[in-house]
């Protein structure tokens, strides 16, 4: 059989499902030997329709899906990358349907604008399993099997908590946020801000700078530090913009800056391991999220009901638990250069 690891943390899940429903922990998902056998004999086909395929998170998801599907004898007939474009995702769904998959695993770029295209797939009798978000107007159990989400809100809370500890509950911080209507990043931003304001009255958010493309984050952070040369900390909404913050702070001699972020990318992990400016982060656990989605896909193919909303809890990562966390997140050993920092 296949099941989700027990190593997932037992943190409370903050995010609610797209329809406000409480989450079920992904740990409860598994496939029995019998189920597996039945799936294997179906010779099913699956397609993965991503919103963006170019980061660690997507890569870990796709790997997990591919690995798990191969255990289930499900052929992955297509993997697409919409590069954050709804038009492209719409086309991708249409094109993928020409391969007549039995199940599509996807994350909508935008719940409203892609609903129509996903509806096409529903009408064609294809099972749908979503990551993180669901098209507008879709009903679980009817239109799609289920959705597995990372606890983005929870991750924002983690990042805020680590920041507060690093600042000893007192200081000024800035937020480098994603200025776009994107569910996942909006939740993190919301969580960080709310947690700081409500729980840490002596920490003041003095700067907020938005970016549209993560490569602009470096300039945004430079400007923050220009205007507030004594800023104590910066929260960046994911790891790539956090690298931009690093590259802005370094030449300005601000090695005392505390940075927290979300997602355990290799670069930020390395900086953290070396005792750099990155002090900690909230991590999603994309590998096991992917495994969960694959299990749900299997259940759906067998016409078995599942819960409407699963979540993978947030993982708190600091220098101390970095190596173990890496294993949890990616289901593999941390890279050598990170391990070396601990010798």
């Amino acid at each position, binding site marked *: 059989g296949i099941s989700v690891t027990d190593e997932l943390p037992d943190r409370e899940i903050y995010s609610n499902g797209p329809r406000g429903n409480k989450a079920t922990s992904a740990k409860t998902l598994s496939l029995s030997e019998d189920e597996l056998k039945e799936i294997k004999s179906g010779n099913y086909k699956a397609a993965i329709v991503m919103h963006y395929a170019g980061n660690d998170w997507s890569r870990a998801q796709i790997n997990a899906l591919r690995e798990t599907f191969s255990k289930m004898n499900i052929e*992955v007939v297509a993997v697409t990358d919409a590069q954050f474009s709804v038009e492209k995702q719409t086309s991708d769904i249409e094109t993928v349907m020409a391969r007549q998959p039995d199940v599509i695993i996807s994350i909508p770029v935008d719940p409203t604008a892609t609903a*129509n295209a996903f509806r096409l797939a529903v009408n064609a009798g294809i099972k749908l399993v979503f990551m993180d978000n669901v098209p507008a107007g879709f009903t679980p159990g009817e239109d799609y099997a289920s959705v597995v989400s990372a606890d983005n809100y929870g991750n924002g809370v983690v990042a805020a908590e680590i920041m507060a500890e690093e600042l000893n509950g007192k200081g000024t911080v800035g937020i480098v946020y994603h200025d776009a209507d994107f569910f996942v990043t909006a939740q993190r931003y919301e969580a960080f801000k709310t947690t700081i304001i409500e729980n840490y009255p002596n920490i003041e958010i003095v700067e907020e700078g938005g970016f549209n493309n993560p490569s602009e984050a470096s300039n945004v952070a430079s400007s923050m530090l220009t205007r507030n040369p004594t800023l104590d900390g910066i929260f960046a909404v994911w790891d790539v913009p956090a690298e931009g913050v690093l590259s802005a702070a370094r030449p300005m001699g601000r090695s005392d800056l505390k940075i927290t972020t979300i997602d355990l990318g290799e670069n930020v992990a390395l900086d953290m391991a070396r005792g750099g400016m990155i002090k900690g982060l909230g991590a999603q656990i994309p590998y096991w999220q992917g495994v969960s989605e694959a299990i749900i896909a299997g259940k759906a193919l067998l016409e078995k009901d599942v819960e409407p909303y699963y979540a993978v809890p947030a993982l708190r990562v600091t220098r101390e638990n970095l190596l173990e966390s890496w294993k949890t997140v990616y289901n593999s050993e941390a890279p050598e250069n990170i391990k070396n920092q601990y010798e």
Partner: protein
Amino acid sequence: MQSKIKGRFRFDWQQNIVFIAFAFVFIFFAITLYKDGFLSVFNIANIFRQTAIISVMAIGMTFVISAGEIDLSVGSITALSALSTALVLDAGLGIIIALIVGLATGMFFGVVNGFFVSQIGIPSFLVTLGMMGTIRGTAMWLTDTKPIPILNDTYNFWFGSGNIGLIPILFFWMILIGLIGYVVYNKTTFGRHTLAVGGNEKAAKYTGVKTSLIKFKVMALSGLMAGLAGMLYAGRMQSGRYTFGEGDELSVIAAVILGGTSLFGGMGTIIGTLVGALLMGVINNGLIIAGLDVSQQMIIRGLIIILAVALGKKK
């Protein structure tokens, strides 16, 4: 008289290379992906659906490039036009008003581009690069990045989502605009003068062609076409969103150049443009169906474009 200059008709590579390239790529996919449904009616319809909107913009762009100018703002215009159309429908003002507002949005920015290019004399590359950001920013700001759904089914049917029989409505839009574009480009004074301006602006001027007016008009036309393309995006996606059309400017220009229009102006073909757009659509579609990784898709897509053109050229 002994000198006989006959119509040594030279097949310009630009005029036929795209057909060879298209045939080559299509047949290649048809053979290798036959089992995977590449040739299914459903998939052929997909290709047209995925190509039509780019084609509409590319028709406008063919005029712009033929006149020796360029328009980088088309992608952004589609977003703003889709959003304003969606807002009008959302306010329950009906399809006619939506149509007017959507097209007027495109036309307006086309006119602004045209003004700066033809009256102030700023290179169109700079004007439309600037407007590209300004318009996208406006679209972002208009609804604070939120998408606006369109619930008007009649609109959605006719402007992008519908099918007549097995044929997608977008196919008819593509044919309609292609036909009009063909006639205007080849059979009207405006089309002829556009080519003259692009071929040699001074000579055109010395022949009494109103060169500034022509430049103004091609920019306005391109804006209008982008406005229509935005409306089709809105109908296809049943919503408006500020990200629509991001990066389309490059695909559109690529379709035009691939089709055989000279980037330096003066020579072009509408049919080539349509085939150029289709060629790119077929490549995108085929590579996904082939089940390649994203990175493999990118690598091969680029190579196919170059090699298909090189191959057509050698012939």
